[in-house]
Protein backbone atom coordinates (compact mmCIF):
# COMPACT_ATOMS: atom_id res chain seq x y z
CA UNK A 1 0.00 0.00 0.00
CA UNK A 2 1.12 3.54 -0.67
CA UNK A 3 0.33 6.91 0.77
CA UNK A 4 -0.23 10.44 -0.41
CA UNK A 5 2.11 13.32 0.22
CA UNK A 6 1.33 17.00 -0.39
CA UNK A 7 4.17 19.55 -0.25
CA UNK A 8 3.86 23.33 -0.59
CA UNK A 9 0.72 23.07 -2.64
CA UNK A 10 -0.44 26.34 -4.08
CA UNK A 11 -3.62 26.84 -6.07
CA UNK A 12 -4.19 30.19 -7.73
CA UNK A 13 -6.79 31.77 -9.95
CA UNK A 14 -5.22 34.15 -12.47
CA UNK A 15 -2.46 34.98 -10.01
CA UNK A 16 -4.76 35.22 -6.97
CA UNK A 17 -3.58 32.61 -4.46
CA UNK A 18 -6.46 30.60 -2.99
CA UNK A 19 -4.43 27.81 -1.41
CA UNK A 20 -0.92 28.56 -0.12
CA UNK A 21 1.92 26.40 1.20
CA UNK A 22 -0.25 23.40 2.03
CA UNK A 23 1.74 20.37 3.19
CA UNK A 24 0.48 17.17 4.77
CA UNK A 25 0.74 13.41 4.45
CA UNK A 26 -1.84 10.68 4.31
CA UNK A 27 0.20 7.60 5.06
CA UNK A 28 -0.72 4.16 3.78
CA UNK A 29 -3.85 2.96 5.53
CA UNK A 30 -4.16 6.15 7.56
CA UNK A 31 -7.33 8.23 7.97
CA UNK A 32 -6.88 11.97 7.95
CA UNK A 33 -9.63 14.52 8.53
CA UNK A 34 -9.36 17.84 6.71
CA UNK A 35 -11.44 20.36 8.63
CA UNK A 36 -12.34 24.05 8.42
CA UNK A 37 -15.32 26.23 7.56
CA UNK A 38 -16.67 26.50 4.02
CA UNK A 39 -14.29 28.69 2.05
CA UNK A 40 -11.13 27.55 3.82
CA UNK A 41 -9.70 25.81 0.75
CA UNK A 42 -10.42 22.18 1.63
CA UNK A 43 -12.19 21.20 -1.58
CA UNK A 44 -9.71 23.06 -3.79
CA UNK A 45 -6.93 21.09 -2.14
CA UNK A 46 -8.71 17.82 -2.90
CA UNK A 47 -9.43 18.78 -6.51
CA UNK A 48 -5.80 19.82 -6.99
CA UNK A 49 -4.65 16.43 -5.68
CA UNK A 50 -6.96 14.70 -8.16
CA UNK A 51 -5.89 16.95 -11.04
CA UNK A 52 -9.50 18.09 -11.44
CA UNK A 53 -9.16 21.86 -10.99
CA UNK A 54 -11.52 23.98 -13.05
CA UNK A 55 -10.58 26.35 -15.87
CA UNK A 56 -8.31 29.19 -14.73
CA UNK A 57 -7.15 27.40 -11.60
CA UNK A 58 -3.48 26.45 -11.51
CA UNK A 59 -1.70 24.22 -8.98
CA UNK A 60 1.98 24.38 -8.04
CA UNK A 61 4.00 22.37 -5.56
CA UNK A 62 4.32 18.61 -5.19
CA UNK A 63 1.68 15.95 -4.78
CA UNK A 64 3.01 12.40 -4.74
CA UNK A 65 1.19 9.10 -4.63
CA UNK A 66 3.51 6.31 -3.56
CA UNK A 67 6.43 8.46 -4.70
CA UNK A 68 4.95 9.24 -8.12
CA UNK A 69 4.50 12.93 -8.86
CA UNK A 70 0.89 13.79 -9.78
CA UNK A 71 0.85 17.53 -10.47
CA UNK A 72 3.37 17.21 -13.30
CA UNK A 73 1.94 13.96 -14.62
CA UNK A 74 0.42 14.00 -18.12
CA UNK A 75 -3.36 13.60 -18.41
CA UNK A 76 -2.97 10.08 -19.79
CA UNK A 77 -1.13 8.94 -16.68
CA UNK A 78 -3.69 10.65 -14.41
CA UNK A 79 -6.48 8.81 -16.18
CA UNK A 80 -4.68 5.56 -15.40
CA UNK A 81 -4.33 6.45 -11.74
CA UNK A 82 -7.72 8.02 -11.05
CA UNK A 83 -10.36 5.48 -10.19
CA UNK A 84 -7.61 2.87 -9.83
CA UNK A 85 -4.93 3.95 -7.30
CA UNK A 86 -6.68 7.10 -6.08
CA UNK A 87 -10.38 7.91 -6.19
CA UNK A 88 -12.79 10.48 -4.88
CA UNK A 89 -16.31 10.64 -3.48
CA UNK A 90 -18.00 13.94 -4.16
CA UNK A 91 -20.37 15.94 -2.00
CA UNK A 92 -23.34 15.89 -4.32
CA UNK A 93 -24.04 12.41 -5.69
CA UNK A 94 -26.99 13.70 -7.70
CA UNK A 95 -24.66 15.73 -9.93
CA UNK A 96 -21.65 13.40 -9.76
CA UNK A 97 -23.60 10.54 -11.37
CA UNK A 98 -24.52 10.51 -15.03
CA UNK A 99 -28.34 10.73 -15.22
CA UNK A 100 -28.52 8.92 -18.57
CA UNK A 101 -26.64 5.75 -17.64
CA UNK A 102 -27.69 2.86 -15.48
CA UNK A 103 -26.12 2.43 -12.04
CA UNK A 104 -24.46 -0.83 -13.04
CA UNK A 105 -22.71 0.71 -16.04
CA UNK A 106 -21.35 3.56 -13.95
CA UNK A 107 -20.15 1.35 -11.11
CA UNK A 108 -18.48 -0.96 -13.61
CA UNK A 109 -16.76 1.80 -15.57
CA UNK A 110 -13.51 1.78 -13.61
CA UNK A 111 -13.33 -2.03 -13.56
CA UNK A 112 -13.82 -2.04 -17.32
CA UNK A 113 -11.20 0.63 -17.94
CA UNK A 114 -8.57 -0.42 -15.42
CA UNK A 115 -9.12 -4.15 -15.01
CA UNK A 116 -10.48 -5.02 -18.42
CA UNK A 117 -13.47 -6.85 -16.98
CA UNK A 118 -16.26 -7.64 -19.45
CA UNK A 119 -19.72 -9.14 -19.53
CA UNK A 120 -20.40 -11.74 -16.88
CA UNK A 121 -17.27 -11.00 -14.85
CA UNK A 122 -18.08 -7.32 -14.87
CA UNK A 123 -21.73 -7.90 -13.97
CA UNK A 124 -20.74 -10.16 -11.10
CA UNK A 125 -18.21 -7.64 -9.78
CA UNK A 126 -20.75 -4.80 -9.98
CA UNK A 127 -23.44 -6.76 -8.16
CA UNK A 128 -20.89 -7.70 -5.51
CA UNK A 129 -19.92 -4.04 -5.07
CA UNK A 130 -23.54 -2.90 -4.78
CA UNK A 131 -24.06 -5.56 -2.16
CA UNK A 132 -21.03 -4.40 -0.23
CA UNK A 133 -22.39 -0.86 -0.02
CA UNK A 134 -25.57 -2.45 1.34
CA UNK A 135 -27.98 -1.65 -1.44
CA UNK A 136 -30.94 -4.02 -1.28
CA UNK A 137 -31.43 -6.27 -4.29
CA UNK A 138 -28.14 -5.37 -6.00
CA UNK A 139 -29.15 -7.04 -9.29
CA UNK A 140 -32.23 -4.84 -9.56
CA UNK A 141 -30.41 -1.67 -8.49
CA UNK A 142 -27.74 -2.22 -11.13
CA UNK A 143 -30.46 -1.73 -13.77
CA UNK A 144 -31.88 1.48 -12.27
CA UNK A 145 -31.03 5.06 -13.17
CA UNK A 146 -29.70 7.56 -10.60
CA UNK A 147 -33.02 9.44 -10.38
CA UNK A 148 -34.75 6.27 -9.16
CA UNK A 149 -32.56 6.22 -6.05
CA UNK A 150 -32.69 8.25 -2.85
CA UNK A 151 -29.83 10.59 -1.95
CA UNK A 152 -28.35 8.12 0.50
CA UNK A 153 -28.54 5.29 -2.04
CA UNK A 154 -26.84 7.47 -4.66
CA UNK A 155 -24.01 8.17 -2.24
CA UNK A 156 -23.67 4.42 -1.68
CA UNK A 157 -23.35 4.03 -5.45
CA UNK A 158 -20.63 6.69 -5.44
CA UNK A 159 -18.80 4.70 -2.79
CA UNK A 160 -19.10 1.50 -4.79
CA UNK A 161 -17.58 3.32 -7.79
CA UNK A 162 -14.78 4.78 -5.70
CA UNK A 163 -13.69 1.50 -4.12
CA UNK A 164 -14.23 -0.72 -7.17
CA UNK A 165 -10.52 -1.01 -8.01
CA UNK A 166 -9.37 -1.09 -4.37
CA UNK A 167 -7.53 2.26 -4.46
CA UNK A 168 -4.63 3.08 -2.15
CA UNK A 169 -6.08 6.48 -1.35
CA UNK A 170 -9.69 7.57 -1.13
CA UNK A 171 -10.68 11.22 -1.00
CA UNK A 172 -14.15 11.97 0.36
CA UNK A 173 -15.32 15.59 0.07
CA UNK A 174 -18.18 16.22 2.51
CA UNK A 175 -19.71 12.87 1.55
CA UNK A 176 -22.78 13.32 3.74
CA UNK A 177 -23.46 17.04 3.67
CA UNK A 178 -26.05 16.85 0.90
CA UNK A 179 -27.92 14.00 2.58
CA UNK A 180 -30.90 13.98 4.87
CA UNK A 181 -29.49 14.47 8.33
CA UNK A 182 -30.67 11.13 9.67
CA UNK A 183 -29.09 9.21 6.80
CA UNK A 184 -25.69 10.80 7.35
CA UNK A 185 -24.64 8.58 10.24
CA UNK A 186 -25.43 5.42 8.28
CA UNK A 187 -23.39 6.54 5.28
CA UNK A 188 -20.42 7.51 7.47
CA UNK A 189 -20.54 4.14 9.23
CA UNK A 190 -20.48 2.41 5.86
CA UNK A 191 -17.55 4.52 4.66
CA UNK A 192 -15.73 3.70 7.89
CA UNK A 193 -16.28 -0.01 7.37
CA UNK A 194 -15.31 -0.04 3.68
CA UNK A 195 -12.08 1.82 4.39
CA UNK A 196 -11.38 -0.65 7.16
CA UNK A 197 -12.03 -3.68 4.94
CA UNK A 198 -9.89 -2.38 2.11
CA UNK A 199 -7.17 -0.93 4.29
CA UNK A 200 -6.99 2.12 2.03
CA UNK A 201 -5.91 5.55 3.18
CA UNK A 202 -8.68 8.12 3.61
CA UNK A 203 -8.66 11.89 3.32
CA UNK A 204 -12.02 12.94 4.74
CA UNK A 205 -13.02 16.52 4.12
CA UNK A 206 -15.71 17.64 6.50
CA UNK A 207 -16.79 20.31 8.91
CA UNK A 208 -18.36 17.68 11.16
CA UNK A 209 -15.89 17.28 14.02
CA UNK A 210 -17.94 14.50 15.61
CA UNK A 211 -17.36 12.41 12.49
CA UNK A 212 -13.65 13.27 12.44
CA UNK A 213 -13.23 12.34 16.10
CA UNK A 214 -14.80 8.95 15.45
CA UNK A 215 -13.17 8.02 12.15
CA UNK A 216 -9.81 9.80 11.75
CA UNK A 217 -6.34 9.11 13.11
CA UNK A 218 -5.07 12.58 12.34
CA UNK A 219 -6.58 16.01 11.70
CA UNK A 220 -5.46 18.83 9.44
CA UNK A 221 -7.11 22.22 10.02
CA UNK A 222 -7.27 24.63 7.10
CA UNK A 223 -8.19 28.28 7.15
CA UNK A 224 -7.69 30.97 4.52
CA UNK A 225 -6.15 28.44 2.13
CA UNK A 226 -3.44 27.44 4.61
CA UNK A 227 -2.86 24.59 7.00
CA UNK A 228 -2.93 26.19 10.44
CA UNK A 229 -2.70 23.06 12.58
CA UNK A 230 -2.25 19.30 12.29
CA UNK A 231 -1.66 16.31 14.51
CA UNK A 232 -3.26 13.19 15.99
CA UNK A 233 -7.01 13.78 16.13
CA UNK A 234 -7.37 12.99 19.83
CA UNK A 235 -4.68 15.56 20.65
CA UNK A 236 -5.79 18.27 18.24
CA UNK A 237 -9.48 17.99 19.11
CA UNK A 238 -8.77 17.38 22.78
CA UNK A 239 -6.38 20.29 23.24
CA UNK A 240 -6.24 22.46 20.14
CA UNK A 241 -3.30 24.86 19.92
CA UNK A 242 -4.37 27.11 17.07
CA UNK A 243 -7.05 29.58 18.13
CA UNK A 244 -9.00 28.72 14.98
CA UNK A 245 -9.08 25.00 15.74
CA UNK A 246 -9.95 25.88 19.34
CA UNK A 247 -12.88 28.00 18.15
CA UNK A 248 -14.06 25.26 15.79
CA UNK A 249 -13.89 22.67 18.56
CA UNK A 250 -15.68 24.89 21.09
CA UNK A 251 -18.45 25.60 18.57
CA UNK A 252 -18.75 21.95 17.61
CA UNK A 253 -18.80 20.63 21.17
CA UNK A 254 -21.50 23.14 22.10
CA UNK A 255 -23.56 21.86 19.18
CA UNK A 256 -23.62 18.32 20.62
CA UNK A 257 -25.31 16.99 23.72
CA UNK A 258 -22.05 17.75 25.56
CA UNK A 259 -22.84 21.44 25.08
CA UNK A 260 -24.83 23.63 27.44
CA UNK A 261 -28.08 22.07 28.57
CA UNK A 262 -30.12 25.17 29.01
CA UNK A 263 -31.64 27.59 26.56
CA UNK A 264 -29.18 30.33 25.72
CA UNK A 265 -26.54 31.47 23.32
CA UNK A 266 -24.02 29.06 21.82
CA UNK A 267 -20.43 30.08 21.23
CA UNK A 268 -19.72 31.16 17.67
CA UNK A 269 -16.56 32.12 15.82
CA UNK A 270 -16.61 35.92 15.55
CA UNK A 271 -17.11 37.33 12.06
CA UNK A 272 -17.24 35.08 9.03
CA UNK A 273 -14.98 33.54 6.42
CA UNK A 274 -14.12 36.34 3.98
CA UNK A 275 -14.56 35.92 0.24
CA UNK A 276 -11.75 34.23 -1.67
CA UNK A 277 -8.67 36.42 -1.80
CA UNK A 278 -10.00 38.77 0.89
CA UNK A 279 -8.19 37.21 3.83
CA UNK A 280 -5.87 39.58 5.75
CA UNK A 281 -2.13 39.47 5.09
CA UNK A 282 -0.03 37.49 7.55
CA UNK A 283 -2.09 34.99 9.54
CA UNK A 284 -5.41 34.67 7.68
CA UNK A 285 -7.34 34.26 10.94
CA UNK A 286 -5.97 37.34 12.73
CA UNK A 287 -9.00 39.59 12.09
CA UNK A 288 -11.31 37.04 13.76
CA UNK A 289 -8.88 35.92 16.44
CA UNK A 290 -9.14 36.83 20.12
CA UNK A 291 -5.45 36.01 20.67
CA UNK A 292 -4.05 38.14 17.84
CA UNK A 293 -0.87 40.10 18.65
CA UNK A 294 1.14 42.56 16.50
CA UNK A 295 3.38 39.78 15.11
CA UNK A 296 0.34 38.21 13.43
CA UNK A 297 0.69 40.62 10.49
CA UNK A 298 3.45 38.25 9.38
CA UNK A 299 2.53 34.64 8.58
CA UNK A 300 3.94 32.50 11.40
CA UNK A 301 6.22 29.57 10.61
CA UNK A 302 5.16 26.06 11.59
CA UNK A 303 5.99 25.12 15.16
CA UNK A 304 6.66 21.42 15.52
CA UNK A 305 6.21 19.34 18.62
CA UNK A 306 6.48 15.68 17.78
CA UNK A 307 3.48 14.80 15.61
CA UNK A 308 1.84 18.16 16.21
CA UNK A 309 2.32 21.20 14.02
CA UNK A 310 0.79 24.63 14.58
CA UNK A 311 1.26 27.85 12.65
CA UNK A 312 0.56 30.54 15.23
CA UNK A 313 2.52 33.27 17.03
CA UNK A 314 0.39 33.01 20.12
CA UNK A 315 -0.95 29.46 20.32
CA UNK A 316 -3.27 28.19 23.00
CA UNK A 317 -1.08 26.53 25.63
CA UNK A 318 -1.88 23.16 27.15
CA UNK A 319 -2.43 24.66 30.58
CA UNK A 320 -4.95 27.27 29.49
CA UNK A 321 -8.54 26.31 29.09
CA UNK A 322 -9.38 28.87 26.47
CA UNK A 323 -9.60 26.05 23.98
CA UNK A 324 -12.14 24.24 26.03
CA UNK A 325 -14.15 27.28 26.97
CA UNK A 326 -17.26 25.19 26.75
CA UNK A 327 -16.16 22.91 29.52
CA UNK A 328 -14.99 25.72 31.74
CA UNK A 329 -17.94 28.03 31.37
CA UNK A 330 -20.71 25.52 31.29
CA UNK A 331 -22.97 26.89 34.03
CA UNK A 332 -23.72 30.33 32.63
CA UNK A 333 -24.65 30.96 29.03
CA UNK A 334 -23.54 34.57 29.45
CA UNK A 335 -19.99 33.39 30.02
CA UNK A 336 -19.64 32.24 26.42
CA UNK A 337 -17.63 34.34 24.02
CA UNK A 338 -20.81 35.09 22.15
CA UNK A 339 -20.63 36.97 18.95
CA UNK A 340 -23.83 38.31 17.48
CA UNK A 341 -21.94 39.66 14.51
CA UNK A 342 -23.70 38.73 11.32
CA UNK A 343 -21.84 37.65 8.24
CA UNK A 344 -21.27 40.35 5.67
CA UNK A 345 -22.94 39.79 2.36
CA UNK A 346 -20.41 39.49 -0.40
Amino acid at each position, binding site marked *: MTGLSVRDLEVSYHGLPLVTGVSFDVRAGERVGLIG*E*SGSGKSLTALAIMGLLGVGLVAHGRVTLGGEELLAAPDRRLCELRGDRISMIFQEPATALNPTRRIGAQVGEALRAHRGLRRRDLRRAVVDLLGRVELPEPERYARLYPH*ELSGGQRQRVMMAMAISCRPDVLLADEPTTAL*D*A*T*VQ*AKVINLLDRLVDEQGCALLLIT*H*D*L*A*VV*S*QTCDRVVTMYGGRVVESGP*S*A*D*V*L*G*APRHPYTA*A*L*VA*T*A*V*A*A*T*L*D*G*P*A*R*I*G*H*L*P*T*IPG*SVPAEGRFPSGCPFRDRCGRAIPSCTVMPADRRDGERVVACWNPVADDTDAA*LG*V*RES*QPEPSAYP*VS*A*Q*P*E*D*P*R
Partner: protein
Amino acid sequence: MTGADEEPSLLAARDVSKTYGESWRGRSQSRERQALAGVDLTVTRGETLGIVGESGAGKSTLARLLLALDVPTRGSVRYRGRIVSGRPERELRDFRRHVQIVFQDPSSSLDPRMKVHDLLAEPLRALAIEVDEGEAVRRLLDRVELPESAANRYAHQLSGGQRQRVAIARSLGPSPEVLVADEPVSALDVSVRAQIVNLLTDLVLDTGLTLVIVSHDLAVVRHLCRRVAVLYRGAVVEAGETEEIFAAPRHDHTRELLAAAPRIRARGVGPASETVVG
Protein backbone atom coordinates in the same frame (compact mmCIF):
# COMPACT_ATOMS: atom_id res chain seq x y z
CA MET B 1 -63.34 24.83 27.42
CA THR B 2 -60.07 26.21 28.60
CA GLY B 3 -60.15 27.47 32.16
CA ALA B 4 -58.70 30.86 33.00
CA ASP B 5 -55.81 29.36 34.95
CA GLU B 6 -54.85 26.88 32.27
CA GLU B 7 -52.35 27.67 29.55
CA PRO B 8 -54.32 28.48 26.44
CA SER B 9 -53.77 25.96 23.67
CA LEU B 10 -52.76 27.76 20.52
CA LEU B 11 -52.21 24.94 18.09
CA ALA B 12 -53.35 21.40 18.75
CA ALA B 13 -53.42 18.09 16.94
CA ARG B 14 -56.14 15.71 18.16
CA ASP B 15 -55.76 12.03 17.38
CA VAL B 16 -54.32 12.74 13.94
CA SER B 17 -53.40 9.91 11.63
CA LYS B 18 -52.02 10.12 8.15
CA THR B 19 -51.88 7.29 5.68
CA TYR B 20 -50.21 7.76 2.35
CA GLY B 21 -51.94 5.88 -0.41
CA GLU B 22 -50.96 3.96 -3.52
CA SER B 23 -47.23 3.87 -4.09
CA TRP B 24 -45.93 5.36 -7.31
CA ARG B 25 -45.24 2.96 -10.11
CA GLY B 26 -41.90 1.24 -10.25
CA ARG B 27 -41.76 0.67 -6.53
CA SER B 28 -42.82 -2.73 -5.40
CA GLN B 29 -43.48 -1.65 -1.83
CA SER B 30 -46.73 -2.13 0.02
CA ARG B 31 -49.78 -0.16 -1.08
CA GLU B 32 -50.33 1.99 1.97
CA ARG B 33 -48.05 3.45 4.55
CA GLN B 34 -49.17 4.90 7.81
CA ALA B 35 -46.98 7.91 8.53
CA LEU B 36 -48.81 9.01 11.68
CA ALA B 37 -51.03 7.04 14.01
CA GLY B 38 -53.23 8.83 16.55
CA VAL B 39 -50.95 11.71 17.52
CA ASP B 40 -52.07 14.17 20.19
CA LEU B 41 -50.03 17.30 20.51
CA THR B 42 -50.71 20.68 22.09
CA VAL B 43 -48.70 23.83 21.56
CA THR B 44 -49.42 26.54 24.09
CA ARG B 45 -48.78 30.24 23.63
CA GLY B 46 -45.16 31.30 24.07
CA GLU B 47 -43.85 27.78 24.39
CA THR B 48 -40.94 26.21 22.59
CA LEU B 49 -41.60 22.65 21.49
CA GLY B 50 -39.23 20.26 19.80
CA ILE B 51 -40.50 17.34 17.74
CA VAL B 52 -37.70 14.80 17.45
CA GLY B 53 -37.34 11.40 15.86
CA GLU B 54 -35.33 9.49 13.29
CA SER B 55 -35.81 9.56 9.54
CA GLY B 56 -39.27 8.25 8.66
CA ALA B 57 -40.69 8.70 12.16
CA GLY B 58 -43.33 11.09 10.79
CA LYS B 59 -41.81 14.40 11.88
CA SER B 60 -42.27 16.23 8.62
CA THR B 61 -45.73 14.77 8.10
CA LEU B 62 -46.76 16.08 11.50
CA ALA B 63 -45.28 19.48 10.68
CA ARG B 64 -47.24 19.65 7.42
CA LEU B 65 -50.46 18.74 9.23
CA LEU B 66 -49.86 21.36 11.93
CA LEU B 67 -49.38 23.90 9.15
CA ALA B 68 -52.55 22.76 7.34
CA LEU B 69 -50.46 22.01 4.27
CA ASP B 70 -51.86 18.50 4.20
CA VAL B 71 -55.08 16.88 5.39
CA PRO B 72 -55.05 14.18 8.09
CA THR B 73 -56.66 10.84 7.26
CA ARG B 74 -58.26 10.95 10.69
CA GLY B 75 -58.39 13.47 13.52
CA SER B 76 -58.09 17.23 13.35
CA VAL B 77 -55.76 20.18 13.82
CA ARG B 78 -57.08 23.24 15.62
CA TYR B 79 -55.75 26.73 15.83
CA ARG B 80 -57.23 28.79 18.68
CA GLY B 81 -59.92 26.18 19.05
CA ARG B 82 -61.05 26.29 15.42
CA ILE B 83 -60.46 23.39 13.09
CA VAL B 84 -58.02 24.28 10.32
CA SER B 85 -57.34 20.86 8.86
CA GLY B 86 -59.17 20.24 5.62
CA ARG B 87 -60.44 23.81 5.33
CA PRO B 88 -60.35 25.52 1.95
CA GLU B 89 -57.46 27.95 1.55
CA ARG B 90 -59.71 31.03 1.47
CA GLU B 91 -60.79 30.30 5.05
CA LEU B 92 -57.18 29.98 6.19
CA ARG B 93 -55.96 33.51 5.54
CA ASP B 94 -55.86 34.39 9.23
CA PHE B 95 -54.18 31.08 10.04
CA ARG B 96 -51.57 31.52 7.31
CA ARG B 97 -50.70 34.91 8.67
CA HIS B 98 -50.25 33.74 12.24
CA VAL B 99 -48.59 30.39 11.68
CA GLN B 100 -45.43 30.58 9.60
CA ILE B 101 -42.80 28.10 8.49
CA VAL B 102 -39.04 27.99 7.97
CA PHE B 103 -37.77 25.17 5.78
CA GLN B 104 -34.56 23.15 6.03
CA ASP B 105 -32.83 24.28 2.89
CA PRO B 106 -33.01 28.00 2.11
CA SER B 107 -31.39 27.38 -1.28
CA SER B 108 -34.55 25.68 -2.44
CA SER B 109 -37.13 27.56 -0.37
CA LEU B 110 -36.18 31.02 -1.67
CA ASP B 111 -37.16 32.00 -5.22
CA PRO B 112 -33.89 32.55 -7.12
CA ARG B 113 -35.50 35.19 -9.36
CA MET B 114 -36.42 37.53 -6.52
CA LYS B 115 -34.25 39.99 -4.68
CA VAL B 116 -34.23 39.82 -0.89
CA HIS B 117 -36.46 42.92 -0.74
CA ASP B 118 -39.17 41.16 -2.72
CA LEU B 119 -38.69 37.89 -0.90
CA LEU B 120 -39.46 39.73 2.33
CA ALA B 121 -42.24 41.89 0.89
CA GLU B 122 -44.08 39.09 -0.93
CA PRO B 123 -45.81 37.58 2.15
CA LEU B 124 -46.92 41.05 3.22
CA ARG B 125 -48.48 41.69 -0.19
CA ALA B 126 -50.01 38.22 -0.43
CA LEU B 127 -51.65 38.56 2.95
CA ALA B 128 -52.66 42.16 2.19
CA ILE B 129 -50.91 43.47 5.27
CA GLU B 130 -50.83 47.23 5.01
CA VAL B 131 -47.41 48.51 5.97
CA ASP B 132 -44.71 50.76 4.59
CA GLU B 133 -42.90 48.09 2.59
CA GLY B 134 -39.45 49.66 2.67
CA GLU B 135 -39.68 50.24 6.37
CA ALA B 136 -40.96 46.71 7.00
CA VAL B 137 -38.10 45.18 4.99
CA ARG B 138 -35.52 47.29 6.85
CA ARG B 139 -37.00 46.22 10.17
CA LEU B 140 -36.98 42.54 9.20
CA LEU B 141 -33.37 42.66 8.00
CA ASP B 142 -32.39 44.34 11.24
CA ARG B 143 -34.28 41.71 13.21
CA VAL B 144 -32.23 38.91 11.63
CA GLU B 145 -29.01 40.94 11.82
CA LEU B 146 -28.48 41.43 8.11
CA PRO B 147 -27.32 44.81 6.74
CA GLU B 148 -29.81 46.96 4.80
CA SER B 149 -27.73 46.47 1.67
CA ALA B 150 -28.78 42.81 1.62
CA ALA B 151 -32.19 43.93 0.28
CA ASN B 152 -30.74 44.34 -3.21
CA ARG B 153 -29.17 40.92 -3.37
CA TYR B 154 -30.42 37.70 -4.87
CA ALA B 155 -30.43 34.59 -2.70
CA HIS B 156 -27.54 33.04 -4.65
CA GLN B 157 -25.36 36.03 -3.76
CA LEU B 158 -25.68 35.23 -0.06
CA SER B 159 -23.97 32.59 2.06
CA GLY B 160 -25.94 29.65 3.44
CA GLY B 161 -26.30 31.28 6.84
CA GLN B 162 -27.44 34.56 5.34
CA ARG B 163 -30.02 32.75 3.21
CA GLN B 164 -31.45 31.05 6.28
CA ARG B 165 -31.62 34.50 7.95
CA VAL B 166 -33.62 35.72 4.96
CA ALA B 167 -35.93 32.70 5.22
CA ILE B 168 -36.49 33.46 8.90
CA ALA B 169 -37.07 37.16 8.19
CA ARG B 170 -39.61 36.22 5.51
CA SER B 171 -41.53 34.10 7.97
CA LEU B 172 -41.49 36.91 10.55
CA GLY B 173 -42.93 39.48 8.13
CA PRO B 174 -46.60 38.86 8.91
CA SER B 175 -45.83 38.99 12.68
CA PRO B 176 -46.78 35.38 13.28
CA GLU B 177 -47.70 33.92 16.65
CA VAL B 178 -46.23 30.54 15.82
CA LEU B 179 -43.11 29.67 13.87
CA VAL B 180 -42.72 26.07 12.72
CA ALA B 181 -39.15 25.31 11.65
CA ASP B 182 -38.36 22.02 9.91
CA GLU B 183 -34.66 21.18 10.47
CA PRO B 184 -33.76 24.88 10.38
CA VAL B 185 -30.00 24.42 10.84
CA SER B 186 -29.10 20.98 9.56
CA ALA B 187 -28.03 22.24 6.12
CA LEU B 188 -25.56 24.70 7.67
CA ASP B 189 -21.87 24.73 8.61
CA VAL B 190 -21.28 24.21 12.32
CA SER B 191 -20.24 27.80 13.10
CA VAL B 192 -23.14 29.24 11.12
CA ARG B 193 -25.47 26.75 12.79
CA ALA B 194 -24.66 28.29 16.18
CA GLN B 195 -25.40 31.77 14.82
CA ILE B 196 -28.85 30.70 13.60
CA VAL B 197 -29.60 28.89 16.87
CA ASN B 198 -28.67 32.11 18.69
CA LEU B 199 -30.92 34.15 16.41
CA LEU B 200 -33.88 31.84 17.07
CA THR B 201 -33.10 31.99 20.80
CA ASP B 202 -33.23 35.79 20.68
CA LEU B 203 -36.53 35.75 18.81
CA VAL B 204 -38.08 33.52 21.45
CA LEU B 205 -36.64 35.47 24.38
CA ASP B 206 -37.32 38.94 22.97
CA THR B 207 -40.67 38.54 21.27
CA GLY B 208 -42.28 35.60 23.06
CA LEU B 209 -42.71 33.84 19.75
CA THR B 210 -44.16 30.35 19.94
CA LEU B 211 -41.62 28.05 18.33
CA VAL B 212 -42.04 24.50 17.06
CA ILE B 213 -38.77 22.90 15.91
CA VAL B 214 -38.86 19.67 13.95
CA SER B 215 -35.43 18.09 14.05
CA HIS B 216 -33.41 14.91 14.31
CA ASP B 217 -30.79 16.98 16.14
CA LEU B 218 -31.34 16.54 19.85
CA ALA B 219 -28.72 19.11 20.79
CA VAL B 220 -30.44 21.84 18.77
CA VAL B 221 -33.77 20.96 20.34
CA ARG B 222 -32.25 21.06 23.78
CA HIS B 223 -30.81 24.54 23.15
CA LEU B 224 -34.08 25.91 21.85
CA CYS B 225 -37.02 24.00 23.31
CA ARG B 226 -38.38 23.69 26.82
CA ARG B 227 -40.68 20.86 25.80
CA VAL B 228 -40.04 17.93 23.53
CA ALA B 229 -42.15 15.24 21.88
CA VAL B 230 -40.41 12.07 20.69
CA LEU B 231 -41.92 10.50 17.58
CA TYR B 232 -41.33 6.88 16.73
CA ARG B 233 -43.03 5.06 13.88
CA GLY B 234 -45.74 7.67 13.61
CA ALA B 235 -46.61 7.87 17.29
CA VAL B 236 -45.56 10.12 20.16
CA VAL B 237 -43.80 7.74 22.52
CA GLU B 238 -42.67 10.29 25.07
CA ALA B 239 -43.35 13.99 25.68
CA GLY B 240 -42.59 16.50 28.39
CA GLU B 241 -39.94 18.88 29.70
CA THR B 242 -36.81 18.61 27.53
CA GLU B 243 -34.41 18.65 30.46
CA GLU B 244 -36.28 15.90 32.30
CA ILE B 245 -36.65 13.65 29.29
CA PHE B 246 -33.03 14.03 28.21
CA ALA B 247 -31.84 13.42 31.77
CA ALA B 248 -34.08 10.42 32.37
CA PRO B 249 -35.61 9.03 29.18
CA ARG B 250 -38.38 6.49 29.83
CA HIS B 251 -38.94 5.07 26.38
CA ASP B 252 -36.36 2.77 24.80
CA HIS B 253 -36.43 4.71 21.58
CA THR B 254 -35.63 7.98 23.34
CA ARG B 255 -32.66 6.27 24.95
CA GLU B 256 -31.53 5.02 21.55
CA LEU B 257 -31.79 8.49 20.05
CA LEU B 258 -29.78 9.99 22.88
CA ALA B 259 -27.12 7.29 22.60
CA ALA B 260 -26.87 7.79 18.84
CA ALA B 261 -26.50 11.57 19.03
CA PRO B 262 -23.13 12.69 17.66
CA ARG B 263 -20.43 13.38 20.20
CA ILE B 264 -16.89 14.58 19.85
CA ARG B 265 -15.24 11.67 21.52
CA ALA B 266 -11.60 12.63 21.54
CA ARG B 267 -10.34 12.43 25.07
CA GLY B 268 -10.53 15.58 27.13
CA VAL B 269 -13.23 17.17 25.00
CA GLY B 270 -16.53 18.06 26.51
CA PRO B 271 -17.78 17.71 30.05
CA ALA B 272 -19.47 14.39 29.52
CA SER B 273 -16.72 12.59 27.64
CA GLU B 274 -16.03 10.21 30.49
CA THR B 275 -19.65 9.10 30.49
CA VAL B 276 -19.86 8.60 26.75
CA VAL B 277 -20.27 5.04 25.73
CA GLY B 278 -17.71 4.32 23.05
